[in-house]
């Protein structure tokens, strides 16, 4: 199936596959969304975190005397006040790497390791007073030397993890090669930067009982961590996932504040609200991406890849956070991508520095690895004198080679690349770009003296990580279906996608389906929304739970109507006989029939029409795609203008093509940001230089061109009954590689310019330096 920009006009025969409007939209458009900071409670206190202004130093003293005297201040706490030294555990353990000694403390007592590290918290009756008081906390720190370059001499740098992955005979491949191409490729430090900063409200609703609003992403996991730290049963904490203003990996992980705010609420027996400001967000939320990749590829004369070597150093910042070493792990596991790589050896090292610690950001490891690999292939093609498209075609795995078990593991699962047609999709992308007129535009532009180029990149994604997800479904008294899912709503439209899946099983119509996500009391086993897994694992769990409810409805109706189940079916208002129109019972009658006092219920039967199901999966599924971009370089300013951007992406089954396109559009914009604009920079003392939106540059509508997408659903995934693959990250995955390729192509059209791209983001200064060296006559501003 191929989608275009048109929307379905009539009611769909199945909801899965239809462009139904989002259930989320109405409340969000009316300003009726409920975000964490919208929650207010009587007698609510406001927290403000005091953060280190020094990148590395010994904590000498913290004096809160003056802060405590300010009228309205209720409490000031430091590391010394915590019940015991607490560190935040790793959520995703891989490679059996023990990171215990590098974990982040809730509050440090001896040493600070990055600017932005929480040192103390002030509680006040009013948020303005809390900020005033935080300014009055006097922190004395003895400065220590800082490490900012993790690619320097190893004795300066702490290596928290060092691991390898390999298969095949790599040394032999390099010995047998006709040609070897090598490239060192750096990616700058980026973060997701969702528009809503982090927020939390913790309400102590009873002694040792908490309700928490705002922990949207992995609420069940975070509840477990918090409960263990507080010494409480998980069940005494109820986390409500609320609307979240974007996630992209960083929001909703367990940060120091996720302990501090609930703990302060219990300690003061009052609700506590906390919302970070943007400056805090940019120095304290998970950073990501910063890696150096040293790659070599062994090739035959005809461009055939014989082997690949990779050496990756990740600058992980000051501490190991909840994702541990998952980013470099995914980088090297996914680096061969959709290509036939007979032999592979990769080493990854996780280095610590005095910067904000890192986690994942949309497309973790794949954005980085794809950028480095695709630029390596462009360089190899140029060195061999082969067209870069042909080089890729030569090496893409073909359908008859799939499923392809690659002798690698990641995220604790073996890698089995399932169904697909990589060359077919690549051709579809090239054809689309040709129809859009992009190759002609480059030819014509260059004839007119313009510096233009086309970028091409292929990628393989991963999605649908197990091991399980659970869901409940319930038929209500009024004939509505309630679905309780462990997914969480981060703007991706999961509420609508899950309702579509449910509506195909219980045909009451999507408007009569209510989806409740991420409430730990309703779905205590939910594993949250991350890693492009929700539609795959939560979707299949919802389908299974709805099927159980449907079966139960048929069974009960069979008793009421005295008919065998195989003669009955569900319709929009109840269960009816397939041929005898007079035999039917409504959902409200069935709800009553399932009640505890019902004569239709057998003594050993559970009352109610709510059922819980679990979906488990051993292997991930691997969506894939291609990016193509049309760019123009302004030789006067060094600015790279993206004139056109295309993503073609295979998703197996498109539950809602509009939502998938939306995910791709957003990813493409973030990719343009990551490739050309965004970077956290530090000065020599480790002071962040990108702590406002004046310095950390997000793309605006003027940097993002008209976007073009082609969603393919030709190869349903074999790993799940719905056949779906995740779509959250593919818009971003190859953007670094594609824009590096486009800029390389444009620079290569200039005589004497060194075109290889070795670093993202590609800044105007870098472009000007290249052009300056190539064409001395260029008139450019200083």
């Amino acid at each position: 199936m191929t989608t275009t920009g048109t929307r379905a006009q009539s009611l769909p025969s199945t909801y899965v596959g239809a462009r139904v409007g989002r259930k989320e939209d109405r409340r969000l458009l009316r300003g009726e969304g409920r975000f964490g900071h919208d929650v207010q409670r009587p007698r609510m206190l406001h927290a403000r975190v005091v953060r280190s202004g020094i990148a590395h130093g010994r904590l000498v003293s913290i004096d809160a005397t003056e802060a405590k005297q300010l009228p309205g201040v209720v409490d000031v706490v430091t590391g010394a006040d915590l019940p015991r030294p607490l560190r935040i555990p790793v959520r995703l353990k891989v490679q059996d790497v023990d990171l215990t000694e590098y974990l982040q403390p809730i509050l440090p007592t001896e040493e600070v390791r990055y600017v932005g590290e929480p040192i103390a918290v002030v509680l006040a009756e009013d948020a303005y007073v809390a900020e005033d008081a935080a300014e009055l906390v006097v922190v004395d720190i003895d400065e220590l030397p800082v490490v900012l370059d993790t690619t320097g001499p190893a004795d300066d740098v702490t290596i928290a993890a060092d691991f390898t992955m390999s298969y095949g005979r790599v040394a032999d491949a390099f010995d047998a090669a006709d040609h070897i191409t090598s490239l060192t490729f750096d990616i700058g430090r980026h973060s997701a930067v969702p528009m809503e900063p982090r927020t939390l409200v913790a309400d102590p609703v009873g002694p040792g009982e908490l309700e928490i609003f705002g922990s949207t992403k992995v609420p069940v996991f975070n509840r477990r961590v918090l409960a263990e730290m507080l010494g409480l049963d998980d069940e005494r904490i109820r986390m409500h996932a609320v609307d979240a203003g974007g996630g992209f990996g960083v929001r909703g992980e367990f940060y120091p504040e996720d302990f501090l705010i609930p703990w302060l609420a219990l300690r003061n027996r009052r609700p506590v609200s906390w919302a970070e400001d943007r400056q805090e967000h940019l120095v304290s939320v998970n950073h990501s991406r910063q890696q150096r990749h040293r790659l070599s590829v062994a090739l035959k004369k005809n461009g055939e890849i014989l082997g690949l070597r990779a050496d990756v150093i990740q600058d992980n910042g000051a501490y190991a956070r909840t994702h541990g070493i998952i980013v470099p792990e995914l980088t090297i596991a996914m680096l061969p991508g959709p290509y036939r790589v007979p032999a592979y050896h990769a080493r990854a090292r996780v280095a610590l520095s005095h910067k904000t610690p890192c986690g994942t950001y949309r497309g973790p490891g794949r954005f980085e690895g794809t950028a480095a690999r695709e630029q390596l292939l462009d360089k190899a093609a140029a060195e061999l004198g082969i067209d870069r498209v042909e080089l890729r075609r030569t090496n893409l795995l073909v359908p008859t080679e799939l499923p392809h078990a690659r002798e690698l593991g990641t995220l604790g699962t073996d890698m089995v690349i399932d169904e697909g047609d990589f060359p077919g999709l690549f051709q579809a992308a090239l054809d689309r770009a040709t129809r859009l007129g992009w190759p002609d535009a480059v030819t014509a532009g260059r004839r007119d003296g313009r510096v233009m180029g086309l970028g091409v990149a292929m990628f393989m994604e991963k999605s649908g990580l197990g091991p399980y997800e659970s869901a409940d479904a319930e038929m209500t008294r009024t004939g509505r279906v309630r679905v309780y899912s462990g997914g969480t709503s981060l703007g991706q439209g999961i509420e609508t996608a899950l309702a579509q899946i449910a509506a195909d099983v219980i045909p009451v119509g999507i408007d009569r389906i209510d989806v409740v996500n991420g409430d730990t009391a309703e779905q205590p086993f939910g594993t949250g929304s991350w890693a492009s897994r929700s539609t795959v694992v939560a979707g299949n769990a919802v389908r299974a739970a709805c099927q159980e409810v449907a079966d139960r409805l048929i069974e009960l109706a069979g008793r009421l109507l005295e008919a065998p189940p195989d003669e009955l079916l569900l319709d929009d208002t109840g269960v009816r006989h397939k041929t005898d129109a007079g035999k039917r019972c409504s959902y409200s009658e069935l709800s009553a029939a399932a009640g505890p006092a019902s004569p239709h219920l057998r003594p050993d039967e559970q009352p109610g029409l709510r059922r819980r199901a679990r979906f488990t999966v051993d292997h991930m599924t691997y969506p894939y795609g291609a990016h193509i971009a049309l760019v123009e370089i302004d030789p006067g300013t060094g600015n790279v203008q993206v004139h056109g951007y295309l993503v073609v992406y295979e998703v197996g089954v498109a539950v809602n093509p509009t939502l998938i396109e939306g995910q791709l559009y957003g990813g493409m914009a973030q990719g343009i940001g990551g490739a050309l604009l965004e970077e956290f920079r530090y000065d020599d003392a480790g002071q962040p230089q990108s702590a406002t939106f004046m310095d950390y540059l997000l793309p605006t509508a003027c940097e993002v061109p008209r976007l073009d997408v082609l969603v393919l659903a030709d190869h349903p995934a074999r790993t799940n009954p719905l056949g779906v693959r995740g779509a959250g990250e593919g818009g971003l995955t190859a953007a670094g590689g594609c824009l590096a390729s486009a800029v390389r192509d444009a620079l290569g059209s200039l005589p004497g310019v060194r075109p290889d791209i070795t670093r993202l983001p590609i800044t105007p200064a870098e472009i000007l330096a290249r052009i300056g060296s190539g064409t001395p006559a260029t008139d450019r501003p200083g």
Partner: protein
Amino acid sequence: MRDLHLITTEVNGTQHELVVESRRTLADMLREDLGLTGTHLGCEHGICGACTVLLDGEPVRACLVFGVQADGKQVRTVEDLADGEQLSPLQQAFSKHHALQCGFCTPGFLMLAESYLASRPAADKTEIREVVASNLCRCTGYQGIVDAIHEVATAQQAGPVQP
């Protein structure tokens, strides 16, 4: 010492008398004192535009305006766009064109577009893109936002729609 002021302001057609501290932002006044939480704070330094509201019809960053500056003036927020249950043309177009995902920046874009289309009813896509560039969205790639605003502009040019 708190520096308090008694102000009178009309918000979404309703008159309010409020006592506000001089440093209290219009955004905090709307969200916390009046419970109008549709106005969102994304950066508090005037870049992201999530908090855009209309002050006497002009779009302003509610994080950079003090509550006292609304004294004697009219404020419109996202809560005022729909007519009862009926979404405004812009709200409908945003939904139709998938111009929102997380919805956090959406009220700011809606209010920006509301005032822009009032002054430039026949805006073309290039102009719309330039105006939209004054606010930040991290989800949509701006595609749907530009399309939605353009559709409303086109409908306005075509004249009032007959019911």
